[in-house]
């Protein structure tokens, strides 16, 4: 387990920035409660283990250093994975972090919830409401009408363009959804 180097850090932060924007600061600076009673509240760190980036409190990270590298499997919250080619993709495990700090949100109607959870893109007809100011290419977090985070994706169209779209037009390109916990548990 090691810290991220410059390139990796920039890649991760760029991806996160798409979804949370300036709230990135609050993600990085958040105080961490995952510490013991005699320890002060720490901060969160990013660590890399086997091409996966984890977001965990200081206390956790400290104690994980004692464990042999090949034995550590996971730590705190997984943010994403680096591919073979060096690109960084966010994975669904980081949804709680994203959802808490999301800038752009889309709420789905109940009828199209299941479709999104199967991995399909969000169509105009399934959109209940969306935040203003979404541009094409922004990171969007998808919620259900009951404010349960369902996943995230990239906006294919901005808010204003969406209004003109026909009902079958794609609004959000699917990138990750909580259905993956059931569909592709082994690939997480």
């Amino acid at each position, binding site marked *: 387990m090691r810290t991220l180097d410059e390139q990796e850090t920039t890649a991760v932060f760029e991806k996160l920035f798409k979804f949370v924007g300036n709230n990135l600061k609050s993600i990085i600076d958040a105080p961490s409660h995952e510490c*013991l009673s005699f320890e002060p509240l720490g901060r969160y760190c990013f660590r890399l283990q086997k091409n996966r980036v984890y977001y965990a409190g200081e206390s*956790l990270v400290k104690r994980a250093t004692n*464990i042999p590298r090949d*034995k*550590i*499997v996971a730590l705190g919250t997984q943010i994403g994975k680096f591919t073979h080619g060096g690109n960084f993709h966010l994975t669904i495990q980081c949804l709680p972090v994203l959802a808490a700090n999301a800038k752009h949100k889309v709420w789905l109607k109940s009828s199209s919830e299941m479709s999104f*959870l199967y991995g399909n893109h969000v169509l105009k007809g399934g959109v209940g409401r969306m935040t203003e100011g979404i541009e094409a290419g922004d990171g969007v977090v998808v919620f259900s009408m009951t404010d349960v985070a*369902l996943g995230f994706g990239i906006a294919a169209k901005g808010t204003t363009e969406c209004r003109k779209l026909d009902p079958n037009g794609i609004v959000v390109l699917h990138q990750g959804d909580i259905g993956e916990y059931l569909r592709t548990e082994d690939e997480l």
Partner: protein
Amino acid sequence: MVSLPTKKKNHKPAKFNKQKPVAKNPNAEKPITLKKDKKRKKKSEIFNVKRRKVADPEEESGELEEEVKDESEGSSGEEGEGVKLEGEEFDMSSGSDSDSDSDGGDDGDGDGDDGVDSDGDDPFGKDVFDGSDGEEGGSDLESGSGGELGSDSEMGSGGVLGSDSDDSDDEDLVKKSRALDREKKRVEKEADEELKLNIKEESDEFELPTKEELEEEGNRPPDLQHLQRRMKEIVRVLSNFKSLRQEGKTRKDYIQQLKIDLASYYGYNEFLIDTLVEMFPVAELMELIEAFEKPRPICLRTNTLMTRRRDLADVLLNRGVNLDPLSKWSKVGLVVYDSQVPIGATPEYMAGHYMLQSASSFLPVMALAPKEKENIVDMAAAPGGKTTYIAALMKNTGLIHANEMKAQRLHSLTANLARMGVTNTIVTNCDGKDLPKCLGLNSRDRVLLDAPCSGTGVISKDESVKTSKSLEEIQNCAFLQKQLILAAIDLVDATSSSGGYIVYSTCSMMVAENEAVVDYALKKRNVKVVPCGLDFGCKGFVNYREHQFHPSLEHCRRFYPHVHNMDGFFVAKLKKFSNEIPNSIPPEPAVKVALGTELKYNAHDDTEGKSENGNKDSEHAANTKSKQKPPNAKSKQQPANVKSKQQPAKPKFKPTDSRKRSPRKMYVSGNKNSRARGGKRNGQRERREVPSARIIAPAKGAGNKRKREEPNRKSKSKA
């Protein structure tokens, strides 16, 4: 007159009929048995199926009809119909209902009939057949009486309508009623005789099958109904062994047959049935095995990090799930009766609002009772139900270390942790026995060990356990569990401000894996058993067959499917009260340790003194003797005797000197810590070293040998 001939006729048929019933007795049972008690009915059915053909009951009812026809006069068609109706009703096997109906119907008719009716049914039912097998007789009586009543009522009504003079009718009625009374008495007697015969037959029925019968059975495909009946009979016999036993057969024989039948009926192997029979009384055993056949209800646990039970229940109810709160002992559990949507695939499940988990899995975590900001280890964490519960109880504060040895199960563990929004966990893939080395001794607040076990408590989930377990497997499991529990205990810090607890749980019912392991831990480490807070369970065994366990083991809790409606489970909570490991120090005062340098010298002096007298053997003997006696006693004894001799030698054994020159340092890694690791090494080496260190020792041969070995060990002592 009608009356006289009837009397005579009554006599004749009575005599006639007395003979008939005797012959018919074996056959008389089926319609008789269609009476009140369904249990008795089954037994008689058993007899019927075994011994008789189906045609008999029909013959019997026909015979009844004949009897009644013989006795009563006139309107035989009606009577016959009445009787036939009665007979049919009996044959339809809703015996009690039909009887009551017919009797009720009869009661509705004339007064005279009422009197007869009231005599007819209950008194016979109760007086003669008190709780024994005589219901055949009772039913016989009732059928007879019912038949008579039916015919009587019809007769009565017919008489009222069609007779000429009241007087003659009254006489007829009186005489007929007398005839009926006599008939009843006769039938009673017959019923008594049949009773006795039946009792004999039934008790004969409980004969254990002979070898030939068993062989025959072996050749035929197993008759499940037959087996089931036999098992029930054996249980009945065993419950009242003195009165119902067959002569010449011991209790053991019955139990042996029961074991064989259980094994073949339910599909268990011999070993498992033997152990279950040893653990439970027979009636409870049947309940337990029946409970194993059915699945336990599906439970789910609300994830309190994300939602509340009430809200979750509302949402799920809207989706069409039929659920209820689990029990009063759980505030987060819900039990699912049925569901229109797949309960493991709802959006709420995917969002991590709940976890599908069996009710028994809540228990070890409830016993552990983790507090916020503690340092917890879960030694066998996959698939993560308990780990996520611990995290929820801790509200994502503190630190959890989830370990899982098998790599294939890690995926489900990490996925569940991520899904349920747990952020304070490190997941590792170590062997549980190595965890103290990995994580550090005496470093954690609480440890949960849900040990890998034989799984005999979850037979309802996995039927293969019935046939695949053997004594070896149980012993292997127990061995592994003992190692793991020691590792778990070594992880915990006894001086922790809020903790110092270990919870050991298995999903097995075997004593070898449960109480025996806890007892082993009590002997090997400074722990004690404390109440685990789960008062609704059964107490753990304090003794079991030849084993005697520590009495505190009654604080452990056992859970059974047939008592608690959850999987078989065992939970024990231990509190570590000292970080030291007892008995790791070998009982050699010389070598050992920590008691103080003076002791060492004294011990050395003692051995030295003895060695002057003798050989290596005596030295060794002296050493062993010194080892066996407690060091304190030694030190007290030695100074008086030995000091005087040893004064010249003392300077060599000054503390600082000995430490510098002590070969022990060389042999041992030089760490003071190594003592804590286990004194064996120290002890053995010191044993060797003592003779060699004694330069004065006359047994130079031994010393020389040792000294020859020394060059390997960088000896600093004079060779």
